[in-house]
């Protein structure tokens, strides 16, 4: 056990699975060499250095730099998965997924179903998501609701360095296509991460704070924001459950509903655009299955329905923060049910 960054935890997960299983391969733009870097093979290791060192250990045969064509190599990865390999394809920014929707939605996601359960597609597509990195509108989105919408895909959004290692190993060992989303703002965050390999099962929400007053469901980096708000609120006498679903597909609906039954109040923190996102999905679930438990309307803390701004001051306003979560919790705590007219 030692302190590791989120970036290092991802690198360790990939390296340990490549050592354990010779069918695991890594492919993507710049994952090996980094085009344009002078001379040495392992100059770059991906756009933010996450895969640095892997080509040195595993060689060019298993760490493949691909051409700048997402449609081509995501399709190749889906085919490789269907024919016996376990590819990890790094797609750099989730924003680029648009050009390979057919490969993901119509091919990889459908193989198991359309081949009558006889085909498995053990494919992991890793991509960075999220705002706050000064990367402008085309490199900052949170498109996980789109993938959550597609049956046949599993969608994972790890919230810390410990979580990212266990969830990525689970993703690589999983026999279905997994969309694995890394918030780039978190790459340098550090926490205790075991040196050993370990797995965290999909579809199991993690309770990161315990309290009786309000349930906060948060995704990815928003879990940290929610924890920060919950810690502040605890000092003011308001105690929150904070739930990190870890995966949006499968979604641990049971635990969400149990927590809402206990607290009667729900705040959802989702960094994705506010229409048809995870906050609306969880809201619908609770409204349908636990309406009777609610003591106040559900509150969603989300960005506004705009592209992610490039101006730093606007981008900082755009991403939900602990202040907004704190306000939302206080507003549901202060809600009074109207007397019958």
């Amino acid at each position, binding site marked *: *056990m030692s302190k590791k960054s989120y970036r290092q935890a991802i690198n360790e997960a990939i390296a340990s699975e490549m050592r354990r299983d010779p069918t695991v391969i890594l492919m993507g733009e710049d994952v090996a060499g980094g085009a344009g870097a002078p001379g040495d093979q392992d100059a770059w290791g991906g756009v933010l250095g996450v895969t640095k060192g892997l080509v040195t250990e595993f060689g060019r045969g298993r760490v493949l730099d691909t051409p700048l064509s997402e449609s081509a190599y995501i399709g190749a990865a889906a085919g490789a998965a269907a024919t016996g390999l376990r590819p990890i394809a790094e797609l750099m920014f989730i924003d680029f997924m648009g050009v390979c929707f057919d490969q993901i939605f119509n091919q990889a996601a459908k193989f198991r179903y359309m081949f009558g359960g006889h085909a498995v597609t053990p494919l992991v597509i890793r991509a960075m998501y999220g705002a706050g990195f000064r990367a402008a509108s085309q490199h900052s989105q949170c498109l996980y609701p789109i993938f959550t919408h597609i049956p046949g895909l599993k969608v994972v959004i790890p919230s810390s360095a*410990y979580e990212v290692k*266990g969830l990525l190993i689970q993703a690589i060992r999983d026999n279905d296509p997994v969309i694995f989303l890394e918030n780039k703002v978190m790459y340098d965050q550090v926490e*205790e991460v*075991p*040196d*050993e*390999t*370990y*797995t*965290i*099962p999909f579809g*199991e929400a993690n*309770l990161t704070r*315990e309290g009786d007053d309000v349930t906060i469901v948060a995704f990815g980096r928003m879990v940290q924001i929610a924890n920060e708000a919950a*810690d502040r609120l*605890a*000092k003011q006498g308001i105690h929150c459950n904070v739930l990190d679903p870890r995966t949006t597909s499968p979604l641990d609906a049971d635990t969400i509903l149990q927590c809402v039954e206990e607290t009667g109040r729900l705040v959802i923190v989702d960094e994705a655009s506010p229409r048809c996102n995870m906050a609306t999905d969880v809201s619908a679930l609770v409204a349908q299955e636990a309406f009777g438990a609610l003591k106040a309307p559900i509150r969603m803390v989300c960005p506004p329905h705009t592209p992610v701004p490039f101006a730093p001051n606007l981008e900082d306003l755009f991403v939900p923060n602990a202040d907004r979560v704190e306000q939302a919790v206080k507003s549901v705590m202060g809600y009074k049910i109207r007397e019958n007219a």
Partner: protein
Amino acid sequence: MGEINAITMPKFGLAMTEGKVASWAKPIGAVVKAGDDIADIETTKITNAFESPFNGIMRRHVATVQDELPVGALIAVMASADVSEDEIDRFIDSFQAEFVNADTGEDKASEVEPSTVDVSGRKIRYLDMGQGAGPPVVFIHGFGGDLNSWLFTQPALADHHRTIALDLPGHGGSTKDVGAADISALAKIVSDTLAALAIPSAHFVGHSLGAAIALSIALDDPSRAASLSLISPAGLGKEINATFIDGFVASDRRKALEPVLQMLFADPSLVKRDMIDDLIKAKRIDGASEALTKIADVNFKDGTQTTVLAGRLPELSIPVQIIWGEEDRVIPVAHSQELPVAATVRVLADSGHMPHMERAAEVNALLISFLQ
């Protein structure tokens, strides 16, 4: 004359960074002797009684009950009766001023971290703490635990002894290969670990499965053990709670594990979120679940202990102390009765299977005086 003592937030175990006063055991004005409980300290892992390090009169409760405070923060002030209120105010002011400065610094470099040693191909993790003359004190945790089980015990003994707490194979940060997994095979690995650390002889403190291992080491090679302290030991009778063992092996989620862990304590409310999380994390390491299953199958199948060593106790010529919680729901305290030798048996009230966590102060006092 005029002595003022700061009572600060204690650090229970390596991971604790903050805690809160759950309740005060000594009101303002109470006469306090060193060793008296002054407050219950709650962390996200467990709640534990905090003993006064000093004699004196409780003059101020500085911490508000249920307020989260960092380790080292001022929680109370004790002083003799002749100290004026003004002097205490000044003491608090200067403490707080200095503490803020200290707190902004980086992590203290003096923090002890666990190490690992290679023992014939197995990696064994251990925590080496303190120094002293004579054989070191070696702690062996129970089934499913790890070296952090001794978070209240090891630091107390490290004041006067070199102490080593280790992770058994299959547990904590040690290799998950448990070999044959029976008591004598595990004892051999522990002996080899100590040999690798150049420790020819030790005072063993073992809990549950770890106590049976310590006993086995002492029986097989009496030169290795200077004394035995057996806490809620396995190996002295047949029965063991199958619901606990099987539940612990099978539970891989918080909701399932919580009631199982509560069986360990007389007061189930002692089990906090971080204790459950730490155990879930340990069980999710590759091979951990298989290791626990194998140890349980080999040693504790169907609620019956495979190895009973009670009959061999007369072979020992070293001091033996047995400590047991009166309300142990995992291994019956009755195993401590009618032993064939005159071991010192201490049965502690208000304690389940984990007296070293639940009655830490009493267990520490018993161990310290036994080792003198």
